[in-house]
């Protein structure tokens, strides 16, 4: 019999068999503090117990990979002796409960993951999902999340260079806030979070510990219901100034060799940082919680170990070098305290004023969480979802075009991006919202391009293909900027994994990511899983978000999507089919998500991307834009917006029930709209042919109108100004009093 009653175990999110396993590991009943340690470390959020068996199938190695999954972030070699450190992470649950602080601390967490590796963070991106904006609560959540992201990133001084935002009813009770951070470090300067050296002192650095965020990781591992609003105290409050001090102090500390290991205190706080740091190094760590700086009186060891107060770091320092590191703490006016030391027994030993309150093998917490092979099965409803109902009456192409441009998913996100500092450190080469995020690497000729993409509608219809499409689109966006994709990070947002149909979505999506990454030669270097994204039993659309990093060898060859404002040939790369399943057109005009998502031929995708990268690097093209949400017409319009001028094109009619609609709005994959540099059109077309990439010269840029003909017949004729007004106001109108 357990010393804890069923209610206590339930509050700790531990099942009976998990508790039995704890007793078996310890050879005795745990103390309450120990129960707390296992509770957070074995939570879904920290242990990946439902997802681990699937994540193991992802490709994680490659010649450029310096650090794969398992460390605080992944790292890849970008040449010139430099490494890029990058990762994406979710902060969905906190952002629903408290949008500003939830999003802000999400940004703070991912930044710590990057500088913990010794890297200077240089760029942020984000991938956001909200419910429809006609509901006031969704507007409130979006406003708060955006302000929180800006409030943190702007203050600490890291440019937010782009991202994506999509909308669906299922995100109303469960918004998604995924934040991506990219950092730079000398390849031989990467710092690992691996404790070593028995007797080395363990330091606590940064903000004091309070009662905020206790059981945040456990909260993130459960569904929401009406009582969730009461969990607000479990959301932490961010202090970007403190994080700025930590960032600068840590980077300064790491320049010396006095530091053995650094680990941030994120989810599960002091527990996770000590257990993981010790387990990675195969050593023990002993700390005394009475030495931890606290900001509230009467905190118990349990509370101190589980607090998720923000902006705290754990450092292992070489014995004898204490004075050196303490001078740096002092320079930055940081609270620091020596709270313990590395031991040789492999145990995480927690004392309170000398008395042992917990003693657990570090590896049991970090590595021995149960691994679940949760049952999964395709839901019966899937077959019906995959059928395409008879199309309803379609509006005239020009009306559909304007309606799509003004739908919040496609409309300009400038209202959001202008609230972010997108330029600090003067590296941003493409304005936020105009394609992939691109930052130059000062001191080299290179630049890095990043994109985060995911489409929950496609994944609802077919999680395997949908996830592949997300990998393809993110990599294609990077290739359009001229970047050679070299690495992937992912954030997998799903519902309750204890339901077989959700687990099926998850398993299929991971399988899709793996297959796409292998085909495109892209290693997955890390990421994050967010499950239980449900409210009152209703799950979000399955939303794997893929972040791709690419290298542009010559930063002067960076391309944006905007037409360069000269008269140039426009080339459509790829071919168009009748593919409306899960499309923006289907959702916006008919209000449904049905059918099958666009097919993806990974060989053809790879060929297209290699053509895009080569064409940019050799100056054959002047602009490039991925053809995705909303189809060709939206893509062409986006190339015109932002002073790109007008365009007149004539498209071939695809084989389709409605050839005009398909030519304009189908979302066939592996397509891009490029402009050929003057005199380079033949070279471009020849190379496309050699690579087996369909390429058609469809028209010219110029004028002030967007004119699209299909098989010679006019389908859309609209001034750029009118189209751009619809696009510019589509999102903004919900926030600046233009909607009743």
């Amino acid at each position: 019999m357990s010393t804890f009653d069923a209610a206590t175990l339930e509050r700790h999110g531990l099942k009976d068999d998990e508790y039995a396993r704890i007793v078996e590991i310890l050879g005795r009943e745990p103390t309450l503090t120990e129960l707390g340690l296992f509770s957070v470390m074995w939570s879904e959020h920290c242990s990946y117990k439902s997802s681990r068996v699937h994540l193991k199938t992802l490709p994680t190695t490659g010649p450029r990979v310096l650090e794969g999954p398992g460390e605080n972030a992944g790292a890849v070699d970008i040449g010139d002796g430099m490494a890029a450190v990058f990762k994406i992470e979710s902060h969905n649950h906190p952002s629903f409960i408290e949008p500003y602080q939830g999003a802000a601390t999400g940004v703070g967490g991912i930044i710590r993951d990057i500088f913990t590796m010794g890297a200077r963070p240089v760029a942020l991106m984000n991938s956001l999902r909200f419910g429809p904006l006609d509901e006031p609560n969704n507007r409130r959540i979006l406003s708060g999340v955006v302000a929180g992201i800006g409030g943190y990133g702007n203050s600490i001084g890291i440019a937010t260079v782009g991202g994506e935002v999509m909308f669906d009813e299922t995100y109303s009770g469960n918004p998604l806030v995924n934040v991506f951070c990219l950092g730079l470090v000398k390849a031989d300067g990467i710092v690992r979070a691996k404790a070593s050296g028995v007797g080395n002192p363990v330091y606590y650095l940064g903000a004091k510990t309070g009662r905020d965020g206790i059981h945040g990781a456990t909260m993130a591992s459960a569904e929401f219901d009406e009582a969730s609003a009461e969990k607000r105290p479990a959301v932490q409050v961010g202090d970007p100034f403190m994080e700025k001090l930590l960032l600068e102090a840590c980077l300064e500390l790491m320049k010396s060799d006095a530091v053995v290991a650094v680990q941030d205190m994120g989810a599960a706080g002091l527990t996770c940082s000590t257990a993981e740091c010790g387990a990675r190094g195969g050593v023990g760590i002993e700390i005394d919680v009475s030495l931890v700086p606290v900001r509230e009186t009467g905190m118990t060891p349990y509370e101190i170990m589980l607090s998720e107060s923000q902006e705290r770091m754990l450092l292992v320092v070489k014995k004898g070098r204490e004075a050196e590191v303490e001078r740096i703490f002092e320079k930055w006016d940081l609270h620091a305290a020596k709270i313990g030391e590395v031991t040789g027994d492999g145990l995480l030993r927690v004392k309170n004023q000398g008395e042992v309150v917990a003693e657990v093998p570090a590896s049991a917490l970090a590595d021995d969480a149960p691994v679940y092979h949760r049952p999964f099965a395709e839901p019966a409803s899937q077959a019906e979802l995959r059928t395409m109902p008879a199309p309803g009456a379609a509006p005239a192409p020009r009306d559909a075009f304007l309606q799509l441009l003004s739908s919040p998913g496609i409309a300009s996100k400038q209202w959001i991006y202008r609230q972010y500092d997108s330029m600090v450190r003067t590296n941003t080469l493409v304005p936020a919202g105009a394609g992939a995020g691109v930052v130059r690497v000062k001191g080299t000729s290179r630049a890095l391009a990043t994109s985060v993409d995911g489409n929950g509608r496609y994944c609802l219809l077919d999680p395997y293909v949908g996830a592949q499409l997300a990998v393809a689109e993110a990599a294609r966006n990077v290739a359009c900027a001229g970047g050679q994709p070299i690495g992937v990070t992912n954030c997998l947002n799903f519902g309750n994994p204890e339901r077989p149909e959700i687990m099926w979505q998850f398993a299929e999506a991971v399988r899709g990511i793996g297959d796409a990454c292998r085909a495109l030669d892209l290693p997955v270097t890390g990421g994050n899983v967010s499950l239980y994204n449900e409210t009152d039993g209703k799950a979000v659309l399955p939303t794997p978000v893929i972040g791709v990093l690419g290298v542009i060898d010559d930063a002067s060859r960076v391309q944006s999507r905007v037409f360069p404002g000269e008269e140039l040939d426009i080339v459509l790369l790829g071919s168009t089919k009748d593919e409306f399943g899960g499309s923006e057109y289907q959702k916006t005009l008919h209000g449904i998500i049905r059918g099958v998502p666009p097919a993806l031929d990974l060989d053809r995708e790879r060929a297209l991307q290699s053509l895009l990268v080569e064409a940019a690097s050799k100056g054959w093209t002047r602009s490039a834009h991925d053809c995705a949400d909303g189809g060709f017409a939206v893509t062409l319009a986006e190339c015109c917006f932002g002073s790109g001028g007008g365009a007149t094109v004539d498209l071939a009619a695809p084989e389709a029930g409605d050839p005009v609609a398909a030519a304009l709005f189908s979302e066939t994959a592996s397509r891009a709209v490029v402009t050929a540099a003057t005199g380079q059109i033949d070279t471009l077309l020849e190379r496309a042919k050699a690579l087996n990439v369909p390429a058609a010269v469809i028209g010219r840029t110029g004028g002030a109108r967007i004119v699209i003909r299909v098989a010679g017949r006019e389908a859309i004729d609209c001034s750029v100004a009118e189209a751009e007004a619809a696009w510019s106001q589509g999102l903004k109108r919900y926030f600046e009093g233009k909607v009743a």
Partner: protein
Amino acid sequence: MKFAVVVFPGSNCDHDAYHAVKHVLGHDASFVWHKDTSLGGADAVILPGGFAHGDYLRTGAIARYSPIMATVRSFADGGGPVLGVCNGFQILLEAGLLPGAMLRNRGLKFICEDVRIRVEETDTAFTAACAKGQTLRIPINHGEGNYFASDDVLDALERERRVIFRYVDAAGQPTPEANPNGASRNIAGICNEGRNVVGMMPHPERACEGVLGSADGLVLFESVVKTLADRGGMAVSR
């Protein structure tokens, strides 16, 4: 010549200012820690953008007490050129080196975007190489850039020709629509009586290379080089 870029713990445009004057313009530059009291022999001082001490109070309210600020004040009193950009401008206001105060932006949102500003006066240390009426495309990046002063102060600033930059539209006119943050009389930058201390909300250091979208900000740094050369020698700092 040599620039000093003052670094407060929460400065985040310090590297940008340093990069602009050192790597783009090719002058000597060094960082000066806010706890120091020496400017290291610099000829001109830049107070960069950022959030000096987190700015949870009024922006710049704590930074004015940093040890380096007494040195900056005496450097300015001696005629040394001082440029405060964004948070640097806010600090100059708090330190009393320039008049007025900052309110939160009209609309209460942080704004990062390119704006147009018009050069109103060319007899300051940082506009000497500009043409009067010249417009510059330079980004702003702030949550509190809504410049405020009483009408008396504003009248005096205008009378003494101390309004140096105004937000203007494409036609070069200071219209309400061209005012991004609600600043009094479209003011984007002002100077002190000695015309050697200039504070401005837009970020010239972010507009020094065409590859970043604009190189219009360079002329401000070229101006201070010209000013010092015209003086026939460099200012002496302590």
